[in-house]
């Protein structure tokens, strides 16, 4: 089989943790887009969902912060930050055989670590909750947080390597990247949105031109999209896995009360 779906969406903890805080004009486009994404995911009929999510101190600390870590486990659990996101803790099934195959396949080109004991924070659990899915999940946790995050072009290489293994796998696989877009998370600047950056990035993402962002300077990224802007790494991995395909934007809505320029998008893998 090949990749049957490639999606990306913001995972702002406020979407589930503070659903009523923004004015409805801000929040409703995001909820509608997630409902549309849910319909698209179901229509793609995947057997397994690869979720590419940033690390937010749920698993790794400054003693050891891997650039990329794939979860090879029968099951995982989350959210770690249940009081913050107001989602009940639950177990999430994994998919060991495909996870092992992906780890080996990706390692041909991109160094990554693996873990048999990953916990999920809002980065995985907010999207899973909103998509209402019980699919087996293979998490790939990406350092967008601290230490030495992988350069953006390496996140693209990760997506290409991942796709090569998916193309040889007999089951139907979908991929979801979560995070971004611009935000200054839980900081005094919270609520600031980098509108111009977000729109330019989304144009590239759905236009099959993610290559124009692969050398984006770190300082410019942080100035224009905030520390949370580093989470475009997961979107870049999805774009690469989809073959830099075009797609559609299901919503872009700046939501200051959720501290994020919220975006939901779907690509047409090729």
């Amino acid at each position, binding site marked *: 089989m090949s990749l049957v779906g490639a999606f990306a969406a913001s995972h702002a903890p406020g979407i589930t943790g503070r659903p009523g*805080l923004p004015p409805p004009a801000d929040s409703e486009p995001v909820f509608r887009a997630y409902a549309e994404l849910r319909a698209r995911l179901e229509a793609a009929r995947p057997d397994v969902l690869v979720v590419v999510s940033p690390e937010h*101190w749920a698993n790794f600390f400054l*003693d050891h912060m891997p650039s990329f870590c794939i979860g090879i486990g029968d099951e995982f659990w989350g959210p770690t930050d249940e009081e913050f996101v107001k989602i009940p803790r639950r177990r999430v099934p994994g998919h060991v055989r495909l996870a092992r195959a992906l780890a080996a396949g990706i390692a041909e080109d991109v160094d990554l670590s693996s873990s048999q004991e990953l916990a999920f924070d809002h980065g995985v659990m907010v999207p899973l909750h909103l998509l209402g899915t019980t699919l087996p999940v293979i998490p790939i946790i990406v350092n967008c947080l601290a230490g030495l995050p992988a350069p953006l072009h390496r996140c693209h290489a990760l997506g290409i390597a991942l796709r090569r293994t998916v193309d040889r796998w007999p089951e139907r696989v979908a991929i979801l990247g979560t995070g971004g877009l611009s935000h200054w*998370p*839980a900081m*005094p600047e919270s609520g600031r949105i980098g509108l111009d950056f977000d729109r330019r990035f989304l144009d590239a993402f759905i236009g099959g031109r993610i290559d124009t962002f692969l050398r984006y300077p770190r300082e410019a990224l942080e100035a224009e999209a905030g520390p949370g802007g580093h989470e475009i790494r997961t979107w870049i991995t999805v774009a690469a896995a989809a073959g830099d395909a075009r797609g559609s934007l299901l919503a872009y809505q700046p939501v200051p009360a959720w501290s994020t320029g919220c975006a939901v998008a779907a690509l047409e893998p090729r």
Partner: protein
Amino acid sequence: MGVSLYQVQKLLFDVNRDRQARARFLDERERLMTDYELTADERRAILETDFHTLYQMGVHSLLLVPLAATLGLSFPDYLAILRGTKP
């Protein structure tokens, strides 16, 4: 980043992630703090859960906000404390 800031962030990482560390934070905070090498200023800020000071020291915001939620602090109030507009 100083080694000391590492220790105060490690404490918060443990409290956010580990149920036992969280229980100790709530029930016997001073004893929990002896497991970490903290400066006097860090000890005071942790003891009083002074989010404003911890943020000013350089503690990462995503280590602070889960603890604020655990303590029942609303997100707007948490932000006001960080901004210094609420004590």
